[in-house]
């Protein structure tokens, strides 16, 4: 784990889970697998706190445990999973675009809680939706369950690995840690539940005077009831499926930018057809015949078969090689080259970064080097048609920032510098890694800056929160305009301005974090695609 990743993970943990969980999480990320006692020892925290923090982290799928020899349980933090917290808003938004508000709330609840049973999710989401509906209407559990089933069918949510069933009469003592098994077949099977009910609206203020006793009583009621029928079956968000979806989206929009809307629709159809048949890290999709594609095109598109064939040929001949032709049967077998597409996307990102950082002339040199692979100093000047001095300057600037590297080719076995070729080249993989590291650093810096800005105006923020609370309570009890105005004037005009500018800055920084995460996604997908999985 690089320093930048560790820093970013600790900032994310602190923001979302608090200081104590952050300390333990960061410690685990830095030191690797450790048993409970060692964690408590090294972080100098009480055993109780360490246990609580570990429970929270395990609940959110950020830490896993393994039973080692001699009954010692070791805990391991998943650094890459912690970094995904940056992408949660994107997951929720995608669920909203695909499955509307219900899907959005289901995914949001699952992300907030880590893992939940289906009945718990359905209940919470129905309650939340009922809050937003008009008075008198409630959300039925059945609708929410339907959306849940659809999410499971398209693999966006999956079951967590199952804990073994404990039989009461087992002779041996229970193991120190249960071994959770992931059953491949059942991972998306929804249990047969008869969820009948409607969402409940939270009671208004008047009823909540006895509220403190009522929740306790309700909780006891819930405990005394039988455990829900799907007890022990927990669901979590399937992050890989979302990543697959983002990747498909990126490819389709790239094709749309490069060619036209129709070709992007064709590619989208091809990707949709291969969603379930292709694994997420396959280099290319399963071959699809032109006839199949024609049949599966969305209903709105009325293109003739010949036009479709022409489009496919165009796509296959494109130098970017998003689509390839793998055979001639069935009117032509076509595949989408996923790894090549990811590489092109990463390269395009690199080019755009060079352009924005160094200027368009440097970008020209960079693209030239990408195309020609290896070039000497002199050749760069000739091909790029840039005067020697400037070309030299630009190359050295890029070399110092590690976008470009030198390759030595000796003419003689003694590697004498006067008799060696020095060629400039671009290594996309190492540049991508370097940029990814930089992205992590940028997000960490952004989060720090945002926290600093908020801390500077902490007093002012608290004051404004208090004023808002007073206003809200006064409005609820019915107050005159004059009184409300008086309270609003408690915040003076320059303070209001300060609050406005603080809000603007914080929004800008948050939006930047989201966008850097998009770049992180592209670069990470590319790097993952090049790593050979054993």
């Amino acid at each position: 784990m690089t320093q930048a990743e560790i820093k970013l993970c600790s900032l994310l943990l602190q923001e979302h889970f608090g200081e104590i969980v952050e300390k333990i999480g960061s410690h685990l990320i830095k030191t690797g697998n450790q048993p409970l006692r060692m964690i408590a020892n090294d972080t100098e925290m009480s055993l109780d706190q360490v246990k609580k923090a570990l429970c929270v982290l395990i609940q959110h799928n950020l830490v896993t445990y393994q039973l080692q020899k001699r009954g010692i349980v070791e805990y391991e933090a998943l650094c890459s999973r912690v970094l995904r917290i940056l992408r949660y808003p994107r997951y929720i938004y995608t669920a909203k675009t695909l499955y509307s508000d219900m899907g959005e709330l289901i995914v949001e609840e699952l992300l907030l809680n880590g893992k939940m049973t289906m009945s718990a999710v359905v209940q919470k989401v129905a309650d939340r939706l009922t809050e937003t509906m008009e008075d008198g209407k409630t959300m039925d559990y059945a609708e929410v369950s339907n959306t849940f089933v659809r999410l499971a069918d398209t693999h966006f949510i999956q079951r967590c690995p199952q804990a073994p069933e404990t039989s009461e009469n087992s002779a041996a003592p229970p193991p120190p840690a249960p071994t959770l098994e992931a059953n491949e077949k059942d991972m998306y099977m929804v249990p047969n539940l008869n969820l009948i009910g409607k969402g409940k609206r939270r009671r208004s203020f008047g009823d909540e005077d006895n509220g403190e006793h009522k929740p306790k009583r309700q909780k006891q009621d819930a405990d005394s009831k039988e455990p829900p029928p799907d007890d022990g079956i927990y669901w979590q968000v399937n992050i890989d499926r979302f990543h697959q979806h983002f990747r498909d989206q990126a490819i389709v929009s790239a094709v749309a930018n490069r060619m036209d809307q129709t070709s992007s629709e064709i590619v989208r159809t091809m990707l949709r057809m291969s969603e379930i048949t292709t694994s997420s890290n396959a280099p290319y999709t399963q071959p699809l015949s032109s006839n199949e594609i024609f049949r599966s095109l969305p209903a709105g598109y009325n293109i003739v078969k010949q036009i479709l064939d022409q489009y496919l040929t165009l796509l296959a001949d494109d130098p970017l090689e998003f689509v390839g032709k793998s055979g001639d049967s069935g009117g032509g077998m076509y595949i989408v080259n996923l790894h090549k597409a990811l590489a092109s996307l990463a390269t395009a990102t690199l080019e755009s970064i060079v352009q924005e950082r160094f200027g368009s002339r440097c970008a020209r040199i960079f693209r030239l080097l990408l195309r020609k692979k290896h070039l000497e100093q002199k050749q760069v000047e000739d091909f790029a048609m840039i005067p020697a001095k400037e070309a030299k300057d630009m190359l050295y600037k890029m070399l110092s920032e590690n976008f470009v590297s030198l390759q030595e080719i000796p003419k003689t076995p003694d590697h004498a510098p006067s008799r060696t070729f020095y060629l400039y080249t671009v290594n996309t993989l190492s540049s991508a890694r370097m940029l990814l590291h930089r992205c992590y650093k940028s997000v960490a810096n952004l989060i720090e800056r945002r926290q600093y800005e908020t801390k500077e105006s902490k007093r002012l923020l608290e004051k404004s929160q208090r004023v808002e609370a007073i206003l809200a309570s006064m409005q609820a009890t019915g107050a005159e305009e004059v009184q409300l105005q008086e309270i609003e004037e408690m915040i003076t005009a320059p303070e209001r301005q300060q609050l406005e500018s603080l809000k603007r800055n914080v929004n800008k920084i948050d939006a930047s974090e989201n966008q850097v995460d998009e770049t992180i996604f592209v670069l990470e997908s590319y790097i993952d695609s090049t790593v050979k999985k054993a």
Partner: protein
Amino acid sequence: MAGSGKGRGRAAFTFNIEAIGFAKGETLPEAVFKPTPLFPPTGFKPVPLKMGEDEDYMLALKQEFRGSMKKMPYFIANKDENQAIEKYSKKYLQMRKESMEWIPDWRRLPREMKPRKKTKKAVEKTKKAKVDTTKSNVDVLKKIEELEKKGDGEEKSDEEKEKEKDKEGEEEAANEQEEYDEEEHEEENDYIASYFEDGDDFGAGSDDNMDEATY
């Protein structure tokens, strides 16, 4: 051997400098002896952020998510920070939050995660802020104290009870503090008892309640 250079003592590179593009005899750029600056000036302004409905919605989602996470029972705040400025509302907010305590599914976690039942019971008892603790000597001391205090008024015992409420979850610290408080109050009693030896009313009043001998 190779590369003796043009003249003795003059600095020369070991390779033909034309290979990397410098003409012969040309002034080379200065060598830099400092590390790169912390905030280097960038040549170009950054591109403006993407704006649009999607981005705005995701921004709102992000901020809402952060806010919701802070309210969940999974957020364990540092106790020290909370007590920087004691707010009256904190007492009521904390009680509501505790009613939302989250209990993990113990079947899925290693056995060592579960807090042992002994400590669990003790924690619950101190939370109730009643006088019955597991330690019997504290019981006795408290009873003695309450009997003594009847003469001084009921304020002090109320103070004790409030102090007990505040120290939830820190059983040992709480017991230690209580004993310390008792010592303080006892010292006050000793001081009063030993200093004013005369005064029939005073002596008569305290004789009835005190179990300890007068000094």
